[in-house]
């Protein structure tokens, strides 16, 4: 009797407390709570290439052009554009009604200042700016870009989907020196960032930009009408993946951007949650060589590794489920315009006999390969042991050194001898949208000291990349991209060890997620709570 009475009291107390604490239905209807891939730490999408900051950029800022679902570049803020007969003068006119979040209209001055800052930071932007002679304001909505030579990078650059996209900021903000972070977070994008509600490590909040004027076309990839269908989006920081999955099942969050691969079967079993392949281009695993030191200073030894590796072993060990990975030897992402298997047909087949012969012919002297293994990023952890095993099969000595990702990131910048704190090789992964052509793919940059870590140095590759930048004809660009790929088999700067996709996990009530190379929240709605 006493026990039953106590239970009644406990239940009553619980009901009272839950009544106090539970969110109202109206709140749940219009707020989309998402757990993103990582915490938003930096608020300048031009200053850093971090993907979470790029995603933030797409919430707050708009771009002049954008890539649609077919991979074509379409106008976004731009209404009309034209290029002169000699391909040296581009004229852009902005759409009517574009406003920054503070109510000021977007002008040509803002666009020019933003392009200048982007052009100082972004790899494609830097190449594009070598062609730019001048940028001129025609009127408040029209501006021109004059070139000293034709280039095919104009639209590809201004509409590039991934880090760093050419986001348009107010002129006063865009005039911040490129090496300093901006301090004002005003864009003209479909969402307004609530800086006062931003709690680093906890959450970032965006509300619908009521002044935003979407394009009339339906959304397609990153392009088309950006119609916002929720009042508020909250990016909740959750370090523990299992907690995020539990929260998703319980309806406390609506969306998980990158659920861990090993949790997907558990998520798939839940009746309230669905998995959606929202980024069909996915990601590419990359094995990066450091060409400064033995043994990988020898291109023939790097080529031997290209023969020793196969993609299936890496993909099985890391992703497991074949529905989430693709064996694709093309450097420039299968299914995109510059994808090709030219030069690759006999590579990445684990032809150990040939690889061993090549290693012998190259005069390998037994110098161990210092291979960095990241142990705290689940998606990367298993790559290094597979790489070690495959390299050892052809006779390379491998010293695999395990460390956390941040240590890998610091270590890979060191040019020191591998025996004295340097390195020979490491694995990483790219968003496919960063690897779509020879200029945007950072690992193909072979400009010696100016190239990213690994520092490949090859005049032939650089000549081809420059030719690609100059070429405006897509068919000729394709031929150059093929030539780059062939050159990469002779002078490997990195090895593509496979493509994979990570599905979004979301409540079944969430609809309208657009398949795109970047996670975007326009068109997304919550139905039925």
């Amino acid at each position: 009797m006493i026990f039953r009475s106590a239970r009644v009291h406990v239940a009553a107390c619980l009901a009272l407390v839950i009544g106090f604490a539970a969110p109202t239905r109206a709140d749940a209807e219009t707020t989309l709570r998402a757990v993103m891939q990582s915490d938003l730490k930096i608020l300048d999408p031009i200053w850093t290439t971090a993907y979470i900051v790029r995603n933030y950029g797409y919430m707050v800022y708009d771009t002049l052009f954008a890539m649609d679902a077919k991979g074509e570049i379409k106008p976004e803020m731009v209404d009309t554009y034209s290029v002169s007969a000699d391909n040296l003068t581009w004229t852009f006119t902005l759409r009517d009604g574009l406003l920054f979040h503070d109510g000021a209209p977007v002008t040509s001055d803002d666009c020019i200042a933003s392009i200048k800052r982007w052009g100082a930071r972004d790899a494609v932007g830097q190449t594009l700016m070598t062609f730019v002679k001048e940028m001129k304001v025609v009127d408040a909505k029209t501006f021109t870009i004059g070139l000293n030579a034709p280039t095919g990078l104009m639209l590809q650059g201004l509409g590039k989907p991934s880090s760093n996209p050419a986001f348009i900021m107010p002129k006063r903000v865009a005039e911040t020196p490129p090496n300093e972070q901006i301090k004002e977070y005003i864009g003209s994008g479909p969402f307004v960032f609530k800086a006062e509600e931003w709690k680093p490590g906890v959450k970032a909040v965006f509300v619908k930009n009521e002044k935003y004027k979407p394009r009339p076309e339906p959304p397609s990839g990153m392009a088309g009408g950006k119609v916002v269908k929720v009042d508020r989006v909250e990016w909740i920081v959750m370090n523990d993946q299992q907690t995020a999955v539990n929260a998703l099942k319980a309806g406390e969050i609506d969306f998980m951007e990158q659920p861990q691969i090993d949790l997907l079967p558990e998520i798939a079993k839940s009746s309230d949650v669905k998995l959606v392949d929202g980024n069909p281009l996915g990601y590419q695993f990359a094995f990066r060589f450091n060409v400064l030191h033995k043994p990988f200073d020898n291109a023939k030894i790097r080529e031997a590794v290209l023969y020793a590796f196969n993609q299936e072993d890496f993909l099985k060990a890391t992703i497991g489920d074949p529905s989430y990975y693709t064996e694709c030897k093309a450097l420039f992402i299968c299914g995109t315009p510059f994808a090709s298997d030219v030069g690759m047909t006999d590579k990445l087949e684990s032809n150990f006999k040939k690889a061993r012969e090549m290693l012998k012919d190259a005069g390998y002297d037994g110098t161990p390969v210092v291979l960095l293994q990241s142990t705290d990023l689940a998606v990367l952890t298993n790559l290094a042991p597979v790489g070690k095993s495959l390299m050892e099969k052809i006779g390379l000595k491998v010293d695999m050194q395990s460390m956390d990702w941040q240590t890998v990131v610091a270590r890979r910048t060191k040019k020191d001898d591998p025996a004295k704190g340097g390195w020979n090789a490491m694995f990483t992964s790219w968003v496919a949208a960063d690897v779509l052509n020879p200029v945007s793919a950072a690992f193909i940059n072979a400009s010696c000291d100016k190239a990213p870590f690994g520092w490949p140095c090859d005049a032939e590759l650089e000549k081809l990349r420059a030719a690609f930048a100059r070429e405006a004809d897509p068919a000729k660009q394709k031929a150059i991209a093929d030539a780059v790929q062939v050159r990469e088999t002779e002078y490997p700067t990195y090895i593509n060890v496979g493509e994979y996709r990570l599905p979004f996990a979301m409540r079944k009530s969430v609809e309208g997620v657009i398949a795109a190379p970047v996670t975007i929240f326009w068109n997304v709605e919550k139905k039925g709570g």
Partner: protein
Amino acid sequence: MLMYLCRRIASIVPVVLVVGVLVFLMLRLTPGDPAAVIAGNSASNEDIAQIRAQLGLDKPIAVQFFIWAGKMATGDFGESFFYKKTVASLIADRLEPTLALAVLTIILATVISVPLGTLAAYRQGSWIDRLVMGFSVAGFSAPVFVIAYLLIYIFSVKLNWFPVQGYQRLSDGFGGFLYRLVLPSITLSIVYVALLARMTRTSVLEVLNEDYVRTARAKGLSPMKVVVRHALRNAAVPIVTVIGISIALLISGVVVTESVFNIPGLGRLTVDAVLARDYPTVQAVVLLFAMTYVLINLAIDLLYMALDPRIRY
């Protein structure tokens, strides 16, 4: 007494100095480079060097130390490398969840464990004693994250009684504040209930055999009065010591619980900062923890006097 207090407060200075030097050096000796982390995958070494210069990491370590120490002396904890917010504001944001969780846990643990331990001592050798000691062993043995996931599975996912995760600030309503802390504080308190119950049992057992307890019984006092007024009070010194240390441990050591329940407290801030090599944040938080330890120890020492009039400083 006043002299003692002054001496103890003054002792904070060398502790802070030693901890400050150690944490500063250890961070610099730890592999990792915040500039490389910030710069991202596509950055050249030139980009990274620029960021390093902006963060002041290109200066000699000794210079970096004196700049930091000089700022600390004026109460300026510096700015987070990543968030571009002052470290003081980051800590202020994270203090409430950690304190709330620690206080609630210690209240829960004390309220449950002291009577349990006393009862176990009073009924030494009985089934109650064995039950309490059995629970104590189990409480010590079960990892916190296992208890956390178990409670989440039962009470959040299956029964939907409590939220899986999150924290609501006290200023946003007491109901929601308490509601979100129930599972985390139960999770954390289990190990402290185990510890405190065991400690209470041992202390009370020792006191129950003292002459003055026998005298109290001989005077005809009720068993309850004997235990509460004579035994428990005299057994309180070691119990209070453990409770005090537990509070300090809770403030600095609730990382797992904060992560599993997604509570944005100091523990998570510390781990995030360490993983990102956010030196100013790690340095400030570690110093704060060191000062907390010193101050809690001081408070315990002062409490001894109230509990045992024989103790004087």
